[in-house]
């Protein structure tokens, strides 16, 4: 196995991992505040079409990232108003959001299919970014570096800052957080909006990094993988990074194995590879539920509505 080949594989894995890393990171923060938003796939699609439309119209991929985040956050507010202000059921609202986002993105996207866009150039000088070896570090889209920064930021925010502490407190025990005087609803609004923005950017990764085109259902169900990823990582940001790359490796490994024509690829059918992230997540769920170690638990209030008794 040559170095060039290894570099190429790593670049593909990074591409496959980045969208679920973004979306998973947003969902992690949302869930940490005690809210389960199953609308990730819908928010990703809204982000994807917002990004594509922005580049198609303005030619500016940086603006596209901003617009995707804004669109994701905006659409997540439908969810927030229903579940937080009107205490509607989170599961049903999240599913409805996915249906809505899928439909709306298709409707908006009708005018954008069959078109190609130009996206980011690499941000490092060509000496590094186009070097056959060093591109493994310097050759990515700016969004990839941004995803790493966001992991660090979220990890720092949740564990080291006061607002992060409040957010976790709200997710662990909303009643006592409320009684100390924190606005549970306001914190959760912010967390849902952040989740929407990150899902939007995750969706934007498709047209901006992976496939510079628009097609109906472009994200291909990766919103659900992102939800699995949060659980798989035990609600820990750094583990989420590892998990995203593990899932990304699983999905590309199979393709490389097939392309190599190696006979051992027949051991597992490709559907088994595709099902592995979900199976692994169920196993992890069971393990962390049994071992109850600190930091690896579902937020205690996950999915439960909070109705302030004024």
């Amino acid at each position, binding site marked *: 196995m040559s170095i060039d*080949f290894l570099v*190429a*594989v790593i*670049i*593909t894995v990074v*591409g*496959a991992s980045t*969208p679920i890393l973004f979306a998973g990171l947003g969902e992690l923060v949302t869930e940490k505040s005690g809210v389960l938003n199953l609308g990730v796939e819908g928010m990703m699609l809204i982000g994807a079409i917002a990004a594509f439309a922005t580049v198609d119209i303005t030619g500016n991929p940086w603006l596209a990232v901003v617009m995707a985040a804004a669109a994701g956050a905006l659409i997540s507010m439908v969810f927030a108003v229903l579940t937080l202000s009107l205490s509607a059921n989170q599961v049903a609202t999240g599913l409805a959001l996915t249906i809505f986002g899928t439909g709306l993105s*298709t409707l908006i996207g*009708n005018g954008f*299919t*069959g*078109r*190609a866009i130009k996206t980011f150039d690499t941000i490092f000088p060509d000496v590094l970014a186009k070097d056959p070896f060093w591109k493994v570090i310097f050759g990515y889209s700016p969004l990839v570096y941004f995803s790493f920064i966001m992991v660090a930021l979220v990890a720092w925010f949740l564990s080291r800052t006061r607002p992060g502490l409040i957010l976790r407190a709200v997710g662990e025990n909303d009643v006592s957080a409320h009684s100390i005087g924190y606005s549970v609803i306001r914190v959760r609004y912010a967390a849902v909006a952040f989740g929407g923005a990150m899902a939007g950017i995750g969706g934007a990764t*498709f047209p901006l990094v*992976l*496939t*510079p*085109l628009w*097609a*109906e*259902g*472009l*994200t*291909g169900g*990766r919103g659900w993988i992102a939800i699995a990823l949060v659980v798989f990582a035990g609600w820990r940001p750094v583990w989420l990074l590892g998990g995203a790359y593990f899932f990304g490796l699983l*999905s*590309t490994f199979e*393709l*490389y194995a*097939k*392309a*190599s*024509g190696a006979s051992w690829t027949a051991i597992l*059918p*490709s*559907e088994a590879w595709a099902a592995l992230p979900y199976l692994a997540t169920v196993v992890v769920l069971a393990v962390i539920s049994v071992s109850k170690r600190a930091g690896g638990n579902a937020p205690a209030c996950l999915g439960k509505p909070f109705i302030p008794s004024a």
Partner: protein
Amino acid sequence: MNMNRRRFVQAAATTAIAAALPIIHTRSAFAADPLKIGYVYVGPINDGGWNTAHEAARQEMLKALGDKVTSVYVENVPEGPDSERVIRDLANQGCGLIFGTSFGYMDSLMKVAKDFPNIKFEMCTGFKHAPNVANYNIRFHEGRSVIGTIAGMLTKTNVGGYLATFPVPEVVSGINSFQLAAQKVNPKFRTKVIWINTWFDPAKEADAARALIDQGADVMTQHTDSPAAVQVCEQKGIPTFGQGADQSQFAPTMCKTSTEDQWGPFYTQAAKAVLDGTWKAQDEYWGMKEGAIKMAPITHVPDDVKAAAEKVISGWMDGSYNCYAGPIKDQSGAVKVPAGSVLSNDDILGLNWLVDGVDGKIS
């Protein structure tokens, strides 16, 4: 306050009903002239591939026949019971001719056809027969052999990549004709196949294309519905080809040509036949000669490559070229088509083996 709200709900309900009333209409069911023609599409009409080609052909037919025909289409119809519902609806709406444009509609279409013996049905890529059902198809392999010729001449590594969905005959035939045409101009050529086992997932298509290229393929083609793989080839500087429609906008320098499905001439002919009362339940399998498959302009290739490709095209037109002329061996080395004979249409439409020189198994 309570009363007010109740009154508001009531008022809203009345408004909605009143608003709906003026537009309640009876569906026009008179089936006299003009001939109403229904189309059922499996995806969105702007997918830039399969369905776009059918929709363009429908427009072409409408233009050719003018006010003698009217037409409706339904897009995004899943295969299975939904398609039966849609086809039945088109029949009930007074269509005199209905085109099912995806293989998976075949059984639904056969069922509806039985209940509407006076309506003519045309089934794209199908193989079942009834007095009012005919099948039509395009000899896609003719276009694939042009691509294969170009690929065989452009490659340096002698490895071509082929991105495929499922091993259905049409896809298998595409791979075989690509390899056969390529090895005719380059005996060392081999084709590496990845089956992605999904009809549509652009991100996976792109990843699979990267995997093929990283494993040494320096020319590539795909049998998938999105142009994702074509875009990857442009980024990586790998010659590639569009399928279904001209996809050069996705790879301006690397897309050397595209196979364009031209269903228009057939749609016009079938509609004319129904209008004239000469329609027969007869299968049609058209190629370049009938204008059913066309190559987009061949660009960004050396002159000798372009000349060779154009010779293949004219060869199909005048009958002097056939990629399925023997001798042809399968992957195990067994002779499937002896020298001097040619693979029959029925064999092409039922292909389930890959030719020698293809790496990758039919799962």
